[in-house]
């Protein structure tokens, strides 16, 4: 009957891993509502920080095309800043980027409004940009 413990032990092990992931991502969530980076352009429009890397497969196959579709579908001059974490590790550290791709939506004041860990569709990003104050034609 010791076998009855098997599911319990498995769930405890997975729960521990989930807790670690939650703590890691929770730390990044604290950035929402704060201004982290100050070297952005003065476009006075919401913008996107796109964290990527040379070896990030999903970045190249999905996230980048989604950003291209987003940019082509918005009338305003959307600023998308692509950040290679190998080139700008300090910026990735400041934004607590733990996995790629990560897209961060900033409002006109450079304040973080949304953080997407993993792939974010163009529809999701568009909705988040509108929420951050981007003027988008209906």
């Amino acid at each position, binding site marked *: 009957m010791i076998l009855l413990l*098997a599911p319990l*032990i498995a769930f405890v092990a*997975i729960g521990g891993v989930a807790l670690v992931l939650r703590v890691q991502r929770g730390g990044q969530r604290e950035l929402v509502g704060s201004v982290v980076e100050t070297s952005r352009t003065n476009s006075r429009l919401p913008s996107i920080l796109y964290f990527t890397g040379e070896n990030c*497969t999903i970045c190249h196959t999905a996230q980048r095309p989604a950003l291209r579709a987003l940019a082509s579908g918005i009338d305003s001059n959307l600023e998308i800043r692509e950040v290679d974490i190998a080139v700008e590790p300090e910026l990735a550290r400041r934004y607590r980027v733990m996995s790629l791709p990560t897209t961060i939506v900033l409002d006109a004041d450079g304040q973080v409004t949304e953080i997407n860990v993993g792939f974010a569709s163009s529809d999701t990003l568009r909705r988040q940009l509108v929420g951050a104050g981007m003027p988008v034609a209906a």
Partner: protein
Amino acid sequence: MISIPMAIVPFDRSVLKVNQAILMTGILVGYVAGLAYHPIAYVIPLLAVMMLAAVASPSLNMPRLLYLRVLKPSGIVKPRVVQEDPAPHRFAQLVGAIFLTAASVFVVTGVLLVAWVLAWIVAALAFLNFAWNICVGCIMYAQLVRMGVLPLSREPAR
């Protein structure tokens, strides 16, 4: 502005869902039955072989064949084609296969508690992916690629 054109790969998630459903069902039923009759634990090596074969070749992927030849044509499971890279999912399958292979070793050596713990971990991870699309193996893949342990993959979907 982004300017580098890259191909997006069509990928049918229903194949994964069928695979996960078979895993969860096999492990759950095998575990419950195995409480009464321990040799039923040999369902674990069977599932391990199924997973290893699926990773090795699409033509040996039994859940995929079941989906393509029975479930999809009959309309029982609808296609869920998305645009994404299949490599992380294949890596996740490999992780599941490794866990089940390790569990199989413990089945053969009679250490059933460890075998079922490993099998339940696989079942729970399969459930996370099945129910909420949380792919822990894919997260591991992303981290390993980021660290340079795994190479960039451009393999086609299958």
